[in-house]
């Protein structure tokens, strides 16, 4: 389409640009500015240079936080995609029963994080939870899935994966149903077995859909807050403190706007790097599209 005038593209882009600048660019700029001050909202800000960045990096805190968040996201995305694909393959069948199963699995996705968190807290409760009873019965003793620093993060990630699996299942199911049956018929005529048809027809055809599902799940997992706030509050011993929760904790609970801003800037840069890596990886020619 040829623009009617030079200004027409800008007029079309204008509203989006205004929103982008007002709600993304300006806040990030403000956060970058405030990251050079010590400020508690109530007393006047004090310029401290790069002290906030040094403070969040001290004692390996920033690296641990970044690695923890990446580990959480890796488990959520891989768990969600693996389970989602398996379930999509299982329920990709006609009939009311399978429709009910699909709806049941997807229902976890539309339930609020708060409800999901409370449900799993009850199930995982050390003293009265069904999961804890089961773990004791199979010889895990008094393992506390939410109270043990080694187990808490994988447990939280498993809760995240459980909630998001329904979403990836539905997206992958739509991808599965859009694969032309003629491709399977042609492969079968060429002597391809079930595994070969899955490996050489289904998986390549699902590529773009899987990339979309993985990207959106990755974004959601990086935004994890509700589940941390309700289930563990970042504990035990900071084992489940993820980036967004750490920012919340610094600004609202520990009274440090400057450090929260420094964390926000680092988080923004981390996401930029990840997004560019992802765009490069998903681009057909290995270049950002």
């Amino acid at each position, binding site marked *: 389409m040829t623009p009617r005038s030079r200004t027409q593209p800008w007029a079309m882009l204008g509203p989006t640009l205004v929103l982008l600048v007002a709600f993304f660019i300006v806040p990030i700029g403000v956060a970058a500015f405030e990251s050079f001050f010590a400020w508690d*909202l*109530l007393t006047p800000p004090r310029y401290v240079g790069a002290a906030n960045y040094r403070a969040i990096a001290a004692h390996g805190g920033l690296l641990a936080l970044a690695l923890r968040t990446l580990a959480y996201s890796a488990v959520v995305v891989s768990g969600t995609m693996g389970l989602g694909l398996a379930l999509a393959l299982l329920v990709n069948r006609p009939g009311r029963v399978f429709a009910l199963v699909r709806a049941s699995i997807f229902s976890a996705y539309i339930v609020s994080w708060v409800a999901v968190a409370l449900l799993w807290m009850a199930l995982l409760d050390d003293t009265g939870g069904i999961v804890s009873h089961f773990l004791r019965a199979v010889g895990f003793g008094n393992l506390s899935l939410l109270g043990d620093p080694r187990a808490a993060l994988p447990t939280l990630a498993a809760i995240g994966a459980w909630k998001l699996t329904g979403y990836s299942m539905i997206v992958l199911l739509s991808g599965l149903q859009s694969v032309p049956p003629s491709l399977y018929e042609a492969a079968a005529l060429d002597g391809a077995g079930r595994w070969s048809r899955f490996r050489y027809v289904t998986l390549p055809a699902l590529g773009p859909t899987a990339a979309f599902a993985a990207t959106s799940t990755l974004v959601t997992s990086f935004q994890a807050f509700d589940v941390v706030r309700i289930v563990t509050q970042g504990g035990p011993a900071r084992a489940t403190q993820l980036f967004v929760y750490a920012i919340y904790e610094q600004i609202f609970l520990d009274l440090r706007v400057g450090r929260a801003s420094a964390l926000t800037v680092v988080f923004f840069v981390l996401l930029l790097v990840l997004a560019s890596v992802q765009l490069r990886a998903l681009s057909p020619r290995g270049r950002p599209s």
Partner: protein
Amino acid sequence: MPHSVRASSRVSASRSRRDLLAALLGTLASASCGRSARPLRDGSRVVVTFWYAFGDLVRKVLLDLVDRYNQSQSLVLVRPVHQGDYFEALAKLRTAIAAGAAPPLAHVVLEVLPYLARAGVLEPLDGYEGAGELALVPALSQRGSFGPGAAQETYGVPFNRSTPIAYCNARLFQQAGAHVPTTWDELAQVARSLTRRSSGSVTRWGFEVPLSWWYWVALVGQAGGHLVEPDGKLSLGGPAGEAALELWQHLVRTDRVMRPPPGGDYQAWQSTSEGFLQERIAMMWSSTAFLRYLEASAPFPIVAAPLPRASSFSVPTGGTMFVLVRSAPDEEKQAAWSFVRWMCEPEQAIDWCTRTGYMPITRRAVESLGESGFYMRHPNDRVAYDQLAHAQPWPWAPDLFRVERDIVEPLLQEAVLTGRDAHEVMQEAREQAAEPA
């Protein structure tokens, strides 16, 4: 329709649109500029928005009292607004103060009072009518709750005040032939005797306490330490701080008689209470605030007891103080003060403490409870009040709240759950606490 009527109708419609726009802009302007200097009113009554942070039974009791106050007079209308737990409520209060939209009345945890006072956002209360005549229990007043160096002005009036106490399942104690521990050694011994195991798993824990700052401060005092030394240096108890941590490590990791409850903040407290009520924990430390709820909910008799000692008995006081927000309109502050005074009257103070478990905050309330025989009938209620004889005042340290949440609590949990050396952990805590905020 005649022309004049149509014209009049157009003018009227245009005017009403203008009025609507003006009202909208006015609302937006006042919202962006925060509270106006005019008090909020409901008819002729001044409205006092009161941000509070409670749940369950305590919330119900508070709302009952507010209702009673609102019905008892026609000048002030208190509107309570629930704001989550103490920390959530504090986060919202700070943000609202910064945005110029804070309510006139709130209640804040004790440790945060020096910080808010230093920030200059709290109303000094000494000049308010009757401020000197409240006859507060000295250890619970602001002056008694904080050590030397505390502000001369009064910024907080005690509201829900507590100490940690030991809750014992009397039935399980009787079955095990155990007595309430009075020393740390006895605590470990009794916890061992009450713990039950089956196939390598613990089926009943002898003891439990949240790995929380408040209880650790109690242990520090019992081991003879102080968070801040007389010269003002933040020592976090020195060797006593390490001994307190080592006791937890011993009970959790060596003896395996104490369960570290999952969750942070008050979730861990709730988990402890639930385990105790389900008889999966024989003895726990918790706030006296839960006394009435636990007594009403437990299918077994509860014996409350003072905390044990190492070298001396010691407990911190806890809970919150009423505060007035300085930036609120004067009329609202006056109205809020009248509610605070009313809450300090013996009838309300007694109602509040007898229905919850919190301590009575005025001397007259304590005398009335004694004279009426309440403490004879409810000896558990007396424990927290008697412990005030060993209450250790808090240092008036504006950074204490930050040190508590950002440094000490996560490190305490790490040391107990991973077995990190107590000396090394406390050294790290002291170094971090010494860094500029």
